[in-house]
């Protein structure tokens, strides 16, 4: 079977396009870096792809709020293409700045479980870290096993770096959170690594630096009601191999014992991308 075609957006300050394309290729995708303007101008069509990735970076310098200006370009110019993409059951991921873009286009969290397809209304935001600082540090993440998210199936807990200054997830009211929680859309949270696996998730805000940004309910990432659109602040692509984990010289970097691509050296982050590729292959 032909490898799923993955469009990895780049341009205007997206920075993580090379590695995001690389990790999809490692797990059997056929990733191509496509300049945003090629979709905007109609040179290229989203229809030709089966997965869309919006990588991390500093689109437009994050001026006027992270992801805002890139979100606007997509919201105004790609509205119909993006709606059709999700309606066709194709997965979308936004990482870091890409997550911020998806939130500001309104793709995340999206309307509701009853009417899950995108309406491009912004319902949440990612704002400045409580610390006031951009920081690069490693965090521990735990995933909701019940989440409809197709990207996170079977993943319990991973270590990942965060690298952002605006990662605090906020929504106007607790009922907004409750609605997402009821549908298991609060897919991934920052947790205290000393808790038992599966018991780490809590709504009570964790102290810095366990939660690096003061996110409400410790949210690191969410999905839409279809489970196809997923966004998160941390960088799973940055731990595609164990040699990228800070503990690797201590011989304690976590991850699968063996893999078809990197042998004993596969890192914990790669499974997210493999899940999407396998999902596409399984649903053709």
């Amino acid at each position, binding site marked *: 079977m032909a490898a799923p075609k993955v469009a990895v957006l*780049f*341009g*205007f*300050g997206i*920075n*993580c396009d*090379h*590695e995001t394309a*690389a*990790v999809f290729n*490692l797990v059997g995708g056929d990733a191509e870096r496509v*300049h945003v*303007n090629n979709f905007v*101008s109609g*040179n290229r069509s989203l229809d030709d792809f089966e997965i869309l990735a919006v990588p991390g970076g*500093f689109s*437009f*310098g*994050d*001026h*006027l*709020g992270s992801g*805002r*200006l890139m979100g*606007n*370009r997509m919201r*105004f110019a790609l509205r119909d293409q993006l709606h059709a993409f999700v309606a066709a059951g194709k997965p979308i991921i936004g990482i870091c700045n890409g997550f911020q873009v998806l939130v500001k286009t309104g793709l995340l969290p999206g309307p509701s479980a009853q009417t899950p397809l995108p309406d491009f209304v*912004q319902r*949440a*935001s990612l*704002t*400045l870290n*409580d*610390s*006031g600082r*951009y*920081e*690069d540090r490693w965090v521990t993440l735990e995933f909701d096993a019940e989440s409809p998210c197709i990207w996170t199936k079977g993943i319990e807990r991973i270590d990942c*770096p965060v*690298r952002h200054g605006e990662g605090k997830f*906020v929504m*106007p009211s607790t009922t907004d959170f409750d609605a997402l929680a009821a549908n298991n859309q609060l897919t991934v949270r920052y947790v205290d690594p000393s808790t038992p696996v599966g018991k780490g998730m809590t709504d009570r805000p964790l102290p*810095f630096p366990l939660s690096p940004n*003061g996110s*409400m309910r410790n949210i690191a990432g969410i999905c839409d009601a279809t489970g196809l659109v997923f966004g998160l602040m941390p*960088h799973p692509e*940055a731990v*595609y*191999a164990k*040699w*990228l984990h*800070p*503990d*690797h*010289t*201590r*011989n304690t970097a976590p991850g699968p014992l063996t893999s078809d*691509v*990197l042998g004993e*050296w596969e890192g914990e982050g790669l499974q997210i991308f493999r899940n999407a590729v396998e999902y596409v292959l399984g649903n053709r």
Partner: protein
Amino acid sequence: MAVTRVEVTPKQGEGMRDVRGDVVRRQLMADHNIKVEEVRSINGFLIKSNISKAEITERVNDLFSDPIIEDVLTDTLFLSSSEHFPTTPAAAITIGFKPGVTDNPGSAAFDGFKTIFPHHDHQRDASISTYHTYAFFGLPEGVSTEWLASTLHNNLIQRAVITDANGCSNGQWPAIDYPEKPPQILTPPQRMNLEISDEELLSLSETGLLALNLEEMQTIQSHYRDEAIRQSRAAVGIVTDAPTDVELECLAQTWSEHCKHKIFASKIHHIDPETGEDSVIDSIFKTHIMKPTHDMQKEVDWLLSVFHDNSGVIAWDDDWSVCMKAETHNSPSALDPYGGAMTGIVGVNRDILGTGLGARPIANTDVFCFGPPNWEGELPDNLFHPSRVFRGVHAGVRVGGNESGIPTVNGAIVFDDRYIGKPLVYCGTVGIMPRKLPDGRESHIKTPTAGDIVYMVGGRVGYDGIHGATFSSLELTEESPSSAVQIGDPITQKKMLDMVLEARDAGLISCITDNGAGGLSSSIGEMATYTDGCEIDLAKVPLKQPGLSAWEILVSESQERMTIAVKPEDCAAFDAMAQLHEVEATPVATFTNTGMFHVKYEEETVAYLSIEFLHDGVPQLQLESEWHTPTPELFTPETISLPEKAGHSNLLLRMLAQPNIASKESWVRQYDHEVIAQTVIKPFVGVERDGPGDAGVIAPIHGDPHGLVISCGIAPRYSDLDAGAMAAASIDEAVRNAVCAGINVDKMAGLDNFCWPDSIESVKTPDGKFKLAQLVRANRELERVCRAYRLPCVSGKDSMKNDYGTGEKKISIPPTLLYSVFGDQPDVRFTATSDFKNPGEKVYLVGISKEELGASEISFMLRDSGEANGIGGQVPLLPNPEINITTYRALSTAIQSGLIRTAHDCSEGGVAVAAAEMCIGGRVGANIDIDGTGDASVWSRLWGESLGRFLVGVQPENEDAFIKWMAGHPITILGTVTESENLTISDGYDVLIDVETNSMVEAWQKTLDMTGGVA
């Protein structure tokens, strides 16, 4: 056109914070111990457009404000709204840009404005300007609003509008207006009469900021007396018997110390009364740097390109080559720490992009030298407090590096009082490129031919950045010009970078270089040497604002520009690519083979200089050098009486808190060090990821563990005793750091970045001969050590005027060499970090401790506290580098083979500090015994900084193999990592140090944590 004001402020409420205001509040606490109850922030936009206020008001939530987290008002100041600001503040300050200063948020906002009004005909001078307002509540008595404003802005580039407590209670809110730039009138090219007296020549050079000496001015004068030259000029219709202002400026830039490295190229008469030496050195650069590297190039096949390009290139494997360059941006950073440092980092990124046919920047390094952040002494006029310089420089490289998506993988911060006069800001970048392009060309070789079209790509040309090259060739004074200051625009550069690398792979580029010092005059001028000529039309150059004169267009150093040559048949494809990426690319010149640098403004010739005279016409300087060994007061620790038990333990905690040793984590963590998903060894390592990393290690090809090591060494205080020893120590430290990560010592290259005080004897610099002798000794040591290590210097730079003021008030930096190393790491799965791994690990010293306490960190600490008289004594030396390298090779291959996973360089603070840092990284204790580490004094064996040493950890099961592996090399068992929570260091039966690891963590981390916390 009308100006519409839009203001945005964070919503108040449960879980919401005004983080920007909070940062201001915390910094006032951290830097000045001023406790303000609350600071609230407002972002303002001044929109100059013919789109109506009503239309803008309707769309504010689509662009300017985020409706989830922010409130917005149009044409009303938030401060006047009692709904949003029910309490009256004690002070309100608005900060905006001065006219013409780069306003990145403003440009981004205008880009977004065009997205939401896509069909509107935007007028040419429509734009958006931004500002910030801060409202202070609960301000302590006696804090003046003017002073508060001065901490928030730099009046070289920004303006402040202030309302004090009185004004606040009367509702006189600060309303800043749109920074309109007054129209400029274009001055036509001027004839510059040089038939004047020598005094007038010098005065012309000085008042025009040309930075040329008399002999150089006379060389230019006589050039225009040549009859043949006059005739050739008549033929193109340019003034025949004198230069135009365009020509004179162009020569001044090209011949500047910054561009031509005249001191390194000079003929030096060197005498050393102590040895009786009396000799002549014909170019330090050619003799001590270039020759050794060229000799090494004959023996290896991996040195692809050295010295002549924007960075040095080495073959990394069959498919990829890597390159590295480091630059300094000292003078701009002194005037505007933020903008100066940012343009430093994005500028050196362009050096990489301009290497060969274009390399991709993949890693940054930042090394700073500042005055002490807690400085309480006097500050000379026009200088910022070191903590302000620190914050600004850090923010500049943080924004420049992070927004460009290039990880900062290595660096250092060094403190000394003398850097108050001039901070040093070194920025380095590593690049990677495919050995061969799809069209078969080798990517490290430029391939221009006459007839190629020369484009200026990226940003536009403005008044910002005029005279940077000549300005940096002068000492800093109270009247230093603001036009030399710029703010970088990383996003414009990132767009350009994406586009250029695509154009490279499509085979569209025949030649490329960056626009840095000297602007187009340097970039096109240098590239024109390949084909021996060019013709430029300055009227075609896109400008930020109209009215620039021809000479200003030619020499302006406005940022974010590359100069790229494209074959005529490829221009259409190149234009299309620029359009896709929304990058401005304009043909401004053509390569010729006429031998002439021919500059026109439309049809009029404004400069007509031979390529030969432009590049080789500068006369060689003749300089005098005389060495005498400095004799500062001796450091005599044996006379210091320490408390019996706690003596060295207390010293250890104090040493860990010394700014030069203390953790820089809170600063370094704000750099993205992991973008590109390649960083294997990060700046901080260990269980809590907060122990010191020795070198950066990256695996840049995704899925492949083939690695690259990046490290640095710097030891400026050794110059107080001998600048030669300083140079040797810097190189050795860089190599040792790289060895700790398992570098292949047979495939590594170096960069030499010299920062020196003025070393030309004159009234301003009466001790110029000695300072030049320091440079001679440093370079001799550089050659000796690099030859022994077979370490080629492939690129470098020098900054030779690092002084502030003159006479009594003069402050000169200590002569400083930053040595950077980059090289091959065969397999990153086998590397080492400094953290002790587990109890039971055996600790070994590799290398020999000698009686070398001169200029050591402990001597400086105890001298500064008054406990010791001086820092004099034996400075660490490197007598047999050819033996050291064999030990380094053995240790590095032990790491590469997986035998060792714990290694740490032993430098500032000696064995005691190294062991402490390794305990901190592992959160363990250790029992160390320095008995058996030689005959030197206890002080030397504990605190001494002898070169060539490492501390390594060996797992017990590997101990025998390690001893065998290191046979013939100096290794000494020191002890064992323990379960206990203490580091104990003894000398036989005498316990010298017994300190809890947690206390060491606290001492090490607190000094430079200036964040003010997270609450």
